[in-house]
């Protein structure tokens, strides 16, 4: 833990993140470009036709949405147990990005659902638990803004984030636990043909790298803003 805290020091974080950011950003752009090129070259799926292209943006958005919430939950745990202020900053910085990816997952899912299922929306376990994830993000951000004292806000939002983390395995396993219209797991089971699997994995990597890039910039922004606030208070 001492090792982690040494690198979680704001000054050290600014130095390290500043050094890795250009590489992560470049990797995000290249991976997304490669994923798009590969995606637009797949043959039509025997059942779904070219709507399979929506998978290359829907699944990555959904997986980043869940990973971002996982990251918030881990940072919140670190914040509650060790009271490390950078954990709060990191958790707060991830929330708007996570909410955006969740909204993208819902919208692209609806646009995929209509031609494949005949409906934009159905109240099944996967879709409903994913909609709940969006509400958790919105509630988390609202709570941060509602409490003026940052220390109290950090504690309250950390508790909310940890309670809400129960929803992540529910989303993941909802297709196994309940009868849903949503298709089941197909990446880990090997059911997805390699011709679709590789563009999908490339796009998932691209979305994740983009999220990490934006998250790092948002944490850096929050650190700079805190320095500016401290200077203003001193003035």
């Amino acid at each position, binding site marked *: 833990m001492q090792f982690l805290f040494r690198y979680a020091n704001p000054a050290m974080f600014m130095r390290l993140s500043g050094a890795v950011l250009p590489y992560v950003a470049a990797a995000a752009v290249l991976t997304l470009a490669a994923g798009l*090129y590969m995606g*637009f070259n797949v043959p039509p799926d025997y059942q779904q036709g*070219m709507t399979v292209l929506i998978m290359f943006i829907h699944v990555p958005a959904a997986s980043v949405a869940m990973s971002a919430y996982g990251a918030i939950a881990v940072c919140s745990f670190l914040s509650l147990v060790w009271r490390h202020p950078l954990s709060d900053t990191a958790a707060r910085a991830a929330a708007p990005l996570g909410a955006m990816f969740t*909204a993208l997952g819902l919208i692209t899912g609806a646009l995929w659902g209509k031609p494949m299922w005949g409906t934009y929306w159905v109240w099944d376990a996967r879709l409903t638990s994913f909609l709940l994830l969006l509400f958790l993000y919105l509630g988390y951000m609202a709570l941060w803004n509602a409490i003026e004292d940052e220390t109290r806000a950090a504690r309250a939002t950390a508790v909310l984030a940890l309670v809400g983390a129960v929803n992540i395995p529910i989303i993941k396993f909802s297709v196994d636990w309940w009868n849903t219209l949503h298709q089941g797991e197909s990446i880990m089971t090997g059911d997805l043909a390699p011709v679709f699997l590789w563009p999908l994995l490339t796009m998932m990597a691209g979305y994740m790298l983009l999220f990490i890039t*934006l998250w790092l910039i*948002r944490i850096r922004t929050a650190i700079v*803003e805190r320095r500016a606030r401290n200077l203003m208070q001193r003035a």
Partner: protein
Amino acid sequence: MFDQIFNLGPYSSFIWPAYGVSALALAGATVWTLAAWRGAKRRLAALEDQQAQKDKP
């Protein structure tokens, strides 16, 4: 590749909006994040300048 892009079949009216919304959201988030970063850096630099002026004997 380009033949396929412009020939996405009967469901292109669902595929294009999905890609359009995603591109807009990702580009918007990138621009918004970078603008916030530049704004914060500018504010801090201005405050540091003010502080340096004050600290001058």
